[in-house]
């Protein structure tokens, strides 16, 4: 890496870190209830503000929400980056390839089949959210296995996207069929979950949620070398000594865990995973994963916090996350498609 690129990388990291702090503070300060900045500071520092409601809002609502959002953004964005490199496809992402939907189907089966008794991830009993999480992992894993199978048959990356979209339709239709036999409570909790929401992870659930994401992110960072080799395609990667089958399986397991955990706890969040890696590429001007992966983690956290900040400051209550991500995501995707068309 030469001087110009490393300087640009350092500036990018600094900008994204400052932005992260600003957004995190903004998420602490602004919300449906106005709490004075001084009191917020007190509570964050571990002192009571003297107002029990405020203590609870900051400590058990806003702080967990910020952590949840930042980790979800990082997780989905890294999923997207790994999928884009693995399938050599700039338009790959956990939601568009159906991985999120697969996880969602798993969640739906658990939620609806249990008739709302394991109603939502918001449920307090440990068993309920573990069951939902397992459902999501199985669903995401199943879709990834289907994608691997098809990617060996269809060489065209566009066809793979279409297959991903078809899988989403299929999963959506199965979910509708399940809805027709489920009870009202189950349907309600499933529909609410589908809006996308970063405030669903309780303080008790936080260790499982955050640890599984952090471990997967570390695993992704350890894959930087084979990821870079894969930029050259499988034949070159193998010539460089990379076991491409094993590498791809490891990458897809990491992707599956990241997507499934976020989807189980926060709902199927669209667009973030597809868009953020492109934002990171644009900022760092490189495809080198040693630079791109850390930048993607930070940028993903930033974008998710921005979505959260917008979501909690709606005039009439909370705006669903999935109502915000397309507004940020769609213009960027159209830009990518137009750029790809110009190239060919």
């Amino acid at each position, binding site marked *: *890496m*030469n001087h*110009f*690129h490393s300087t640009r990388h350092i500036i990018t990291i600094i900008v994204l870190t400052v932005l992260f702090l600003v957004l995190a503070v903004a998420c602490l300060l602004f919300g449906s209830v106005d709490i004075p900045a001084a009191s917020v500071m007190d509570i964050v520092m571990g002192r009571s503000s003297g107002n029990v409601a405020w203590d609870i809002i900051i400590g058990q609502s806003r702080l967990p929400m910020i952590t949840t959002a930042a980790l979800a953004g990082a997780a989905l964005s890294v999923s997207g980056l790994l999928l884009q490199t693995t399938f050599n496809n700039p338009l790959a992402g956990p939601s568009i390839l159906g991985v999120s939907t697969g996880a969602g189907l798993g969640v739906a089966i658990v939620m609806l089949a249990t008739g709302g008794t394991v109603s939502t991830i918001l449920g307090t009993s440990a068993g309920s959210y573990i069951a939902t999480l397992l459902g999501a992992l199985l669903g995401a894993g199943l879709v990834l296995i289907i994608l691997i199978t098809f990617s060996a048959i269809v060489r065209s990356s566009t066809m793979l996207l279409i297959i991903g979209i078809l899988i989403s339709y299929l999963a959506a239709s199965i979910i509708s069929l399940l809805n027709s036999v489920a009870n009202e409570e189950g349907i309600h909790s499933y529909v609410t979950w589908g809006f996308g929401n970063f405030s669903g992870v309780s303080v008790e659930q936080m260790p499982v949620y955050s640890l599984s994401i952090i471990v997967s992110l570390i695993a992704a960072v*350890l894959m*930087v*070398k084979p990821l*870079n*080799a894969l*930029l*050259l*395609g499988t*034949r*070159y990667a*193998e*010539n*460089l*000594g*990379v*076991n491409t089958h094993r590498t791809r399986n490891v990458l897809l397991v990491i992707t599956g865990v990241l997507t499934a955990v976020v989807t189980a706890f926060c709902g199927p969040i669209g667009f973030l995973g597809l868009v953020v890696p492109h934002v990171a*590429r644009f900022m760092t*001007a*490189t*495809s*080198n994963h*040693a630079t791109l992966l850390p930048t993607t983690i930070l940028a993903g956290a930033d974008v998710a916090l921005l979505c959260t900040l917008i979501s909690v400051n709606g005039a009439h209550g909370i705006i669903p996350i999935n109502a915000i991500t397309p507004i940020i995501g769609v213009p960027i995707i159209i830009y990518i498609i137009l750029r790809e068309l110009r*190239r060919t």
Partner: protein
Amino acid sequence: MAYLETHQLAVGYTHGKNTTTVLSDLNLELHRGHLTALLGQNGAGKSTLLRAITCTTRPLHGHITIGGADLATLSQRERSRIIGLVSTDRITLGGLTVNDLVALGRQPHTGFLGRLNANDRETVAEAIAAVGITHKANNYMSDLSDGERQKAMIARALAQATPIIVLDEPTAFLDVASRIETMQLLHSLAHDHDKAVLLSSHDVSQSLLMADDLWLITRDREVVAGPTQDIIASGAMQRIFTSDNVEFNPDILDYQYKPE
């Protein structure tokens, strides 16, 4: 003494249960310090043979030895330090600079995280200098001409520091000037860096001018191998193409139309 040898090698492809043998009974030699050109008409099996030598596919029969060791018994990582590849795959490398790309060639020699040490960085700079594109080292691959891009790919294989470099049609997409430059470059890499360079090509006249040895796939799917001069003298060049309307002219080292 030959560095790479094939012993009763048969290559081809398997599709489901059907096995198609393309070339068989191959006893070929590759020498260090020599540029070897693999010639044959389209569909003769040039790529299939190269795929077997780079271990992309398994031989159907026989084996390949390198310095006496059976290639199939080596690990993928060991092989990655012996054979470098420049394939025909056209890859989009928008976000990589020449430096980034050539640095990937060091992967077989770097640790788990792929960090480059001073020695690696020096090897990368030398490889870029050897192909003559040092002034483009910080340019993005997408900003290069076809010829420069091919040179960067060759530099990547050079940085891999393997005794053998295999190139599948390295001059296929290039204009005449870049084609001649690339062939000259490969010739000097073989001679100055003591590498065994094996390339497949359509460009008969350039191959005959630059290659020390030839592997010639005839229309009867026989492979005639040996020093370039001997092959030309033997008249084997007449046996490449199935068409009766072209003949080899040794004076111009190329084929020409033969009226019936």
